[in-house]
């Protein structure tokens, strides 16, 4: 059995969610090849190997330097064919979703999305997916010889005991029709921990009163190596950028720890965070609905609790 993983790079490094996809594929059993677009640091190749890849197909063709979903999809389908891969595994993301969809049609594969665990193969091939925006799961049978699995964060733990992979330059056959949509520019925060990738998320809500009060959220996040998030009204009022908005109509996160500060816990907000491993809620209202979904809670004023918590974490480190 052979598995192809579509891996995403971020400033030369492999995204954590893609390393999870590699280790997931290793656990599926079989040879794991990886396809990645763009320039890749040597350390990134080593990391892919440790996570379980035996082969890395590097695509450095200048024509494919910008995100190009149609061309990437054609290349991934071509690589599946070339590697004789029956499986494609990738992380859910703004690239992973459309590429998986297009490749599914190209190669005639069954597709499982929002997959949270390894499949049950005792009879057929059954995957567990998160549905209703994290409110439930579905166990479904994937039919057909070829399968595509789109993983939610934390579907597998990243392994670290693999060896060095074989590296191969891969130049896909590009087609003119695949260049109909042109990325003219991108506007991207650099250096920050990306919200969907983050292991810890510190989120603020309307309880913080205004954008000028986000300093303490950022400090706590920095101390924890966390990403920052927010509730919908906060991004609607432009206190924070839209790509930080968490919930039913925003980013769905599944970090190990989600810290909610001054967020009431409306069902639409909970929908985006309820697959977090642990939830810590800081809210001055003991009746805030968020406490019902929380593992840990502090009833208190955020302006008092958050700086003190940052200090307590610092103190415990030293």
């Amino acid at each position, binding site marked *: 059995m052979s598995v192809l993983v579509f891996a995403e790079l971020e400033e030369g490094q492999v995204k954590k969610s893609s390393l999870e996809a590699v280790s997931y594929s290793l656990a599926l059993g079989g040879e794991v090849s990886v396809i990645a677009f763009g320039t890749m640091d040597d350390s990134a190749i080593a990391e892919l190997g440790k996570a379980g890849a035996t082969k890395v197909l590097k695509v450095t063709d200048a024509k494919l330097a910008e995100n190009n979903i149609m061309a990437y999809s054609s290349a991934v389908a071509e690589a599946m064919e070339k590697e004789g891969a029956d499986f494609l595994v990738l992380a859910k993301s703004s690239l992973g979703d459309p590429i998986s969809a297009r490749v599914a049609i*190209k190669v005639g594969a069954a597709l499982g999305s929002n997959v949270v665990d390894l499949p049950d193969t005792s009879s057929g091939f059954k995957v567990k997916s998160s549905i209703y925006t994290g409110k*439930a799961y579905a166990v479904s049978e994937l039919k057909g010889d070829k399968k595509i699995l789109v993983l939610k964060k934390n579907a597998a733990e990243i392994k670290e005991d693999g060896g060095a992979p074989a590296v191969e330059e891969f130049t896909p056959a590009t087609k003119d029709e695949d260049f109909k949509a042109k990325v003219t520019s991108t*506007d*991207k*925060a650099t250096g920050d921990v990306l919200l969907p990738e983050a292991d810890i998320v510190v989120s603020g809500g309307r309880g913080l009163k205004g954008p000028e009060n986000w300093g303490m959220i950022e400090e706590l996040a920095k101390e924890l190596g966390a990403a920052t998030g927010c509730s919908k009204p906060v991004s609607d009022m432009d206190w924070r950028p839209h790509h930080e908005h968490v919930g039913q109509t925003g980013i769905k996160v599944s970090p190990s720890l989600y810290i909610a500060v001054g967020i009431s816990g409306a069902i639409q907000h909970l929908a985006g965070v309820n697959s977090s491993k642990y939830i810590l809620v800081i809210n001055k209202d003991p009746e805030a609905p968020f406490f019902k979904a929380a593992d840990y809670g502090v009833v208190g004023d955020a302006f008092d609790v958050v700086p003190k918590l940052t200090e307590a974490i610092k103190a415990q480190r030293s």
Partner: protein
Amino acid sequence: MKILVCITHVPDTTSRIAFTDGNTKFDKNGIQFIIGPYDDYALARAVELKEQHGGSITAINVGEAETEPTIRKALAIGADEAIRVNAHPEDAIFVAKQIASVAKGGDYDLILMGRESIDFNGGQVHGMVGEILGIPSISPVMKLDIEGNTAKVTREIEGGKEYLEIEMPFIAGCQEPIAEWKIPNMRGIMSARTKPLNVIDPTGDNPMNVVEVFEMPPAKSGVKLVEPDNLEELVKLLKTEAKVI
């Protein structure tokens, strides 16, 4: 400009989800169904584009008869006609094949969808329809403006935005703030009753992802409260009990 808008019929975002029949069926008891919130953005943008550029809007849903009130709502908001493909939307591939089959005969300049359905959250039907039709699909789209035959599109990516230029026809999966949701007015509701809603049979394609059983997430065991003046205790719990910091 001819626009096709794809709408889902889904439980309201405040719904508590439950299952019946040994966790094999969705429990519709007490559930209010709505147009998917992202599909609502797609429809609202379609109405604005029609105001600017003229043309017509066709709404399509793949679903059984129960979805008709939701389709009528799309007609009340501003679609000119609607199509219901009479089938249970079992998986994304099946749905995509139905929509693509309608789109093939329709000569649409633009196909607008939601960024994702809020039942299965796949975010995949747009890519699949795009691949079947051989046209680009862009999602999630925050801004979409059309001049002549060319569109300028803003797509959200992790940590930022991507700006694209693209010729019609193409598919966009919409999200906020592409347009303001539109609430049907009285005239819209009245005229929706007489607008055409054509029911057609599905293609013979089979789904490839078939749900066997649903599960609920394990219940939380209850919150551990820590006093605001004892945060050292909280740090200890996070470190030694949860092991997350």
